[in-house]
């Protein structure tokens, strides 16, 4: 069953002009409109995610991966203009047009975002447990014991030492902080998690362990995910299907194995060859 379906999603920084879409993208070789200077961070993006499925988004730095992922996760950058249509199972209307309260409810119960930058997602002065608890408390949990139990369970599930639960998050290693973000995202049993660059800032050995944990939990919970990475290896490991982005456009999409083994687009071919 389709969980999320998006069409013509675009995120734009700048005033915009009638030429913006034609003058940017893969063929134009830029994401900035030469006429008005507007950055078309992503545009003309059509995609869907099925229940329990993992969709990967790859592309070079600046290709618009985060912009697209954040639009889908209902993250709002006050400087950006976001257009398009996103429908979500069990919800009437366009997710891009919901009011604050609906957005808050969706974000605290249905769709979780794990930020690319740890500092955007955690309050490092709070304890690690407190950061996870915040998600539950914001969703209306009012029993201390229930919150406590759920936080402990999530620490175990994401393999963070439970003994560190009540230490300030700033004393955690990068890998632990990333796990806290994931635990937080899982806290209210959402249907969809948007994971932006899950390996950023982590040592290679830590990267693999965090990804393994996420893959296991994702399967156990049956939660759908959109995983964004500039690293093909991450997407290859986690994603059932993959989108390739360049200059703000999706240039190729398909089953991950197919995209990796038989890339159609020239850019994807160089991307894969450069890794191998």
């Amino acid at each position, binding site marked *: 069953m389709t969980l999320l379906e998006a069409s013509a999603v675009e995120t734009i920084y700048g005033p915009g002009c009638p030429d913006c879409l034609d003058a940017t993208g893969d063929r134009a070789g830029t994401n900035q409109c030469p006429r008005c200077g507007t950055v078309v961070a992503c545009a003309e993006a059509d995609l869907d995610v099925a229940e329990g499925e993992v969709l990967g988004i790859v592309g070079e730095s600046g290709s618009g991966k985060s912009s697209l992922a954040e639009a889908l996760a209902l993250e709002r950058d006050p400087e950006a203009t976001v257009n398009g249509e996103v429908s979500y199972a069990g919800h009437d209307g366009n997710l891009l047009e919901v009011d*604050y*309260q609906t957005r*808050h409810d969706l974000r605290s119960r249905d769709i979780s975002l794990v930020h690319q930058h740890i500092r955007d997602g955690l*309050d490092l002065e*709070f*304890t690690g*447990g*407190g*950061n996870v*608890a*915040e998600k539950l*408390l*914001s969703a209306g949990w*009012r*029993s*201390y*014991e229930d*919150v*406590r139990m759920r936080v402990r369970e999530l620490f175990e599930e994401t393999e963070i030492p439970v003994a560190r639960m*009540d230490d300030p998050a700033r004393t955690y290693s990068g890998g632990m902080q990333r796990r806290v973000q994931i635990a937080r995202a899982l806290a209210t049993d959402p249907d969809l998690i948007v994971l932006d660059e899950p390996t950023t800032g982590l040592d290679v050995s830590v990267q693999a362990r965090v990804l393994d944990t996420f893959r296991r939990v994702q399967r156990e919970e049956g939660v759908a995910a959109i995983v964004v990475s500039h690293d093909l290896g991450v997407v290859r490991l986690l994603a059932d299907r993959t989108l390739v982005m360049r200059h703000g456009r999706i240039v190729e999409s398909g089953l991950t194995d197919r995209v990796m083994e038989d890339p159609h687009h020239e850019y994807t071919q160089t991307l894969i060859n450069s890794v191998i």
Partner: protein
Amino acid sequence: MAKETTSQHRDESTGGGTPVPTDSVDAALSAVETDGLSGYNYAYLDEHTKREVRRSMLKAVAIPGHQVPYASRPMPLARGWGTGGIQASLSLLGPADTLKVIDQGADESVNAANIRRLAENTAEVATTTDTTKADLIQSRHRIPEEVLTDDQRLVLQVPITDALRKVDPSDAANRRRHAHKNYGKMWVHLYENVVEYGEINIASRYPTMVANRYLMDPSPIPRWDVPKLDDANHLTILAAGREARIYAVPPHTSVEPLAFEDRSFTVERFPEQACHACGSTDTYLVEVSEEPGTTAGDDDTAASFETRYACNDSSFCAKRRENPNLPKDHHLDRSGVDWGPATPDGGENA
């Protein structure tokens, strides 16, 4: 804000107010005495200012718990000594009113006396120490023990207006949180409090929901006093001078201290303690260590190092000394009025 001029010239550098040097109540009052009231308006503040303050209070009443900005004026008191409270009081008082001023429960403090004197001399009000006789009570850190009625107004002095500042120093971010009733961070603070202490351990400025909408800092009153604000008969105005904000709890408004279902809000308990002066066990007690032979009048003990407990509300304590069984609602025509914590003798335990 308002750019209108009044009959008095304004000192632009201080954002308006009276043009006289106002370092102290004494200086201000001696100026009143030499120049008469000509340099001053009734109740010290000019009419325009008082109207602005009242307008902010009306707004505050209309949106219970919401912090409303106002143009706070320089006052002849050091900031942080109730300049907000006194502006609220002076804007409300009329010549027929009787004022009571308390500072941490006591009418006698220098600060309370100064505020009282300023109001007496400029607004020609009567003053009292008797809670039940006051039309308006300005207070720092306490709500009186005796039940307030629907024709009384309580002005609480506020040093820090936003309960959320405890969890985030950014006022801009906190304003957004209030706008969206987004209090997750405060809940995390409570959660971490329980993690650390096994219970919610916040001594004063207890985060409190007003009318199920706005989170409010009830000023540094003890937890003991917070329940008195819930469904009260009287109007409470909370005013901050330095931060130039006013907020209010109108009569019969729900006021609910934040707490977990399984870690509830509790008031201070004084097990086995009674006021050494009046014997009360149902009042908010504070530790006092008085040297022997001073005011307290206890003639027997010479144990000068022993800490003793005494009622913090000194005027009610005086009444209880006369009449040890005087109920907190003795002045009302109905009894058994729910006001603050129940009497421990009445069967309740911590």
